[in-house]
C-alpha cells in the first residue's frame, strides 16, 4: 500500500514538473562547450541575463558528439520547451529535418539560415565588425603590416578575414595583410601551439597587430602576441582582459543579445531571417578599462564614424560569402 502511495506521489511530482516545463525556453550549446570564453559562453550569458531579469528558468544542454544534435532537439521539443535556441552553423541540416515535425514549437538558430516557417535564423554581419577592428589595426600598426589568423578554413572565417582586410586598406591602402588559416579540420579550432607558430611567422614577416578568429587556437595567438610585445585583437566575446594593455580590442559578436532577444520574445518569437549588424548592435568592437590606453581619440572617432556610415548604408563592406571572393585579400 505504502509502495503504491509512493508511486502515485512520484507520478504526481513528475506531472507537475512536466507541466512547469511547458513554457521554459531551452538552449543547446555546440561542441565548443559552454565556457569557451567566446561564442557559446556569450550565448549562455544572454540566457542568464534573461533569466535574471524575468526570474524564470531555462533548460540547457552541452553537446558531446555530433550524434546528439537531433536527439537533443527532439527531446526538448517533445518536452514542450519553447522556444529552442541553438548555437552554431552545424545545426543547420538537423534543424531543417526536425523543425517540420514540431510546427507549434519555435526554433532559433544562430549563424545559419534554415528556411522553415517556425525557425528564426540569426546571422551576424561579421564582416562589418571585422572592418572596424581592421581600421583600428591599421591605425595602431607602425610597420604597415598586420596579420590575420583564422581557425578552420571555412567560408565564415574567410568572411572575417575579408572584412578585416577591407578595413585595413580603407585606412592605409599600402598596408600588407598577412592572412593564415590554422588548418582544414576541426582540430584547427584547438591548436594553440600552431597558433603561436603562425603568430611568430607573421611577426617575422613584419606584422605588429594580429587578429585571431580561431576559437581555442586564438588563446595561443594572443599569448604569443603578448610575449613578443605586439598587439592582438580578440574575437566573438570581449577578450581584452586576457592580456590587459596588449589586446588592442575585440571584435564583438553579440550572440548574447541574440539569445536574450529570442528568449524574451518567448513563444511569440518572430521567425525568418534576423540579420544582426552594426545597425542593430549585433557586432561591434570592445572598449573597456583594459584597452583604453591603446585606443586613441583619433582612432575612436574614425571607427565610430565608419560604424555610423555602415549603419546608415552609406558604406558597404563586401561580404565574402555573397560571392566567394574578396576584393582586398587573396586566399
Amino acid at each position: 500500500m505504502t509502495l503504491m502511495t509512493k508511486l502515485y506521489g512520484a507520478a504526481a511530482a513528475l506531472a507537475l514538473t512536466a507541466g512547469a516545463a511547458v513554457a521554459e525556453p531551452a538552449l543547446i550549446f555546440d561542441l565548443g562547450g559552454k565556457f569557451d570564453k567566446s561564442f557559446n559562453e556569450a550565448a549562455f550569458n544572454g540566457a542568464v541575463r534573461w533569466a535574471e531579469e524575468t526570474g524564470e528558468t531555462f533548460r540547457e544542454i552541452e553537446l558531446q558528439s555530433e550524434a546528439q544534435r537531433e536527439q537533443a532537439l527532439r527531446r526538448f521539443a517533445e518536452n514542450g520547451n519553447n522556444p529552442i535556441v541553438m548555437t552554431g552553423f552545424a545545426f543547420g541540416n538537423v534543424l531543417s529535418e526536425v523543425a517540420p515535425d514540431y510546427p507549434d514549437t519555435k526554433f532559433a538558430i544562430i549563424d545559419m539560415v534554415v528556411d522553415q516557417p517556425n525557425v528564426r535564423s540569426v546571422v551576424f554581419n561579421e564582416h562589418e565588425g571585422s572592418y572596424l577592428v581592421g581600421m583600428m589595426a591599421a591605425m595602431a600598426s607602425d610597420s604597415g603590416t598586420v596579420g590575420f589568423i583564422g581557425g578552420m578554413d571555412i567560408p565564415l572565417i574567410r568572411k572575417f578575414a575579408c572584412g578585416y582586410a577591407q578595413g585595413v586598406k580603407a585606412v592605409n591602402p599600402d598596408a600588407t595583410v598577412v592572412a593564415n588559416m590554422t588548418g582544414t579540420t576541426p582540430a584547427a579550432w584547438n591548436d594553440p601551439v600552431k597558433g603561436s607558430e603562425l603568430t611568430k611567422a607573421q611577426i617575422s614577416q613584419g606584422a605588429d597587430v594580429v587578429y585571431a578568429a580561431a576559437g581555442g587556437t586564438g588563446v595561443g595567438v594572443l599569448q604569443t602576441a603578448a610575449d613578443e610585445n605586439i598587439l592582438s585583437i580578440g574575437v566573438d566575446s570581449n577578450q581584452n582582459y586576457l592580456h590587459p594593455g596588449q589586446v588592442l580590442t575585440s571584435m564583438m559578436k553579440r550572440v548574447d543579445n541574440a539569445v536574450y532577444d529570442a528568449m524574451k520574445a518567448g513563444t511569440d518569437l518572430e521567425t525568418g531571417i534576423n540579420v544582426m549588424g552594426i545597425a542593430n548592435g549585433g557586432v561591434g568592437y570592445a572598449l573597456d578599462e583594459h584597452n583604453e590606453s591603446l585606443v586613441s581619440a583619433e582612432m575612436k572617432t574614425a571607427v565610430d564614424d565608419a560604424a555610423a556610415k555602415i549603419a546608415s548604408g552609406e558604406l558597404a563592406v563586401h561580404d565574402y560569402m555573397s560571392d566567394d571572393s574578396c576584393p582586398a585579400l587573396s586566399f
Partner: protein
Amino acid sequence: MDFVTLLQVLDSTVRLATPLLLACLAGLFSERAGIFDIGLEGKMLAAAFFSAAVAAITGDVWLGLGAGVLASLALSLLHGLASITFRGNQLISGVAINFLAAGLTVLIAQDWFSQGGRTPSLIGEGRFEGITLPGVEAIAGIPLIGPIYGELISGHSILVYVAFAMVPLTWWLLYRTRFGLRLRAVGEAPEAVDTAGISVVGLRFVAVGICGVLCGIAGAYLATALQAGFVKDMTAGRGFIALAALIFAKWRPWYALYACLLFGLLQAVALRYQNIDLGAFVVPVQVMDALPYILTVVILAGFVGKAIPPRAGGEPYVKER
C-alpha cells in the same frame, strides 16, 4: 629565401619537433620492448593538463612538470596493467587511454577552474622560459656562426635540450648497456629472455614506465613551455605524428631524431608559406600537412626499404609450461 628567414624556419622546426621527438622516443622504448603504444597522444594530453594545472595552482613550473610526468606515468602503468599483466589487446588499451585522457582532462579542468576546460594562463615562474646559452654575446659578431648559435641553438627552453640529449642517451642505453640488450630482446624473442632467467613482465613494465616519463615531459613542454596553459585537445594529433615518425625511423633512435626534424620542418614550412608557388604549379598547404602521413604510408608499403617492427610486438607473453 634569405638567411634570416631560413633561421626563423629552422628555429620553428626545433620548437615543433621537440614534442614529436620526446613522444617518438617514448614510443621507441615501449615498442622495442614489444608493447605497441597508440596511447602516446592521450598520455601527452594528460601530462599537458596536469603540468599546467599544478603550475597554475602552485606557481612553480617544476612542480607542474613533476605532476605532468606522474599523470603520464599513471596512464602508462594502466596500459601496462591491461596489456602486460592481464594480456589484453594493446591497441584497444591504447585507444582507451586516448579517450580517457581527452575526456578526463576537460572534466577535471572544468571542475577545478570553471574556465571551459582550460587552465588559467601561467605567468612568471609558472612557465619554462627560454634560456640563453653562455657565449652568445661573445660570438654574436661572427658572421654565420654567431646568428646560428644565438638564434637557432640558444634561447630555447630547458626541455628542448633535454629532448635532444635524450637521443644519444637512448642510443647508448639501447645498444651499449646490458639493460638495452635485454630490452631489445624482450621485444624480439621474449621466450629467450625468459629462459635466461630474466623477468619479461618486469622489463616490459620498466619500458612502459620510461615511455610514460618521456610522454610526460612532452606534454609538459606543450603546456608550460610552448604555451602558457592547457586548452582542450591541445596535442592536436601530435602523438599520432610521433608514431608515424617512429615507423618512418624504423624504431631506431638517431633516425627518430631525423624523422622528427623532417616532420617538424614540414610543419614549419607549411606554417610559414601557406601555399608554395613553384612557378609551374602551386603546392597547397594541405599537401604539406598531409606529407608526414603520406611518407609513412610510402615507408610501410615498402618502397623505401622495409619497416619491420619488433617481432614480438603486440603479443602478450605467455610463459610456457
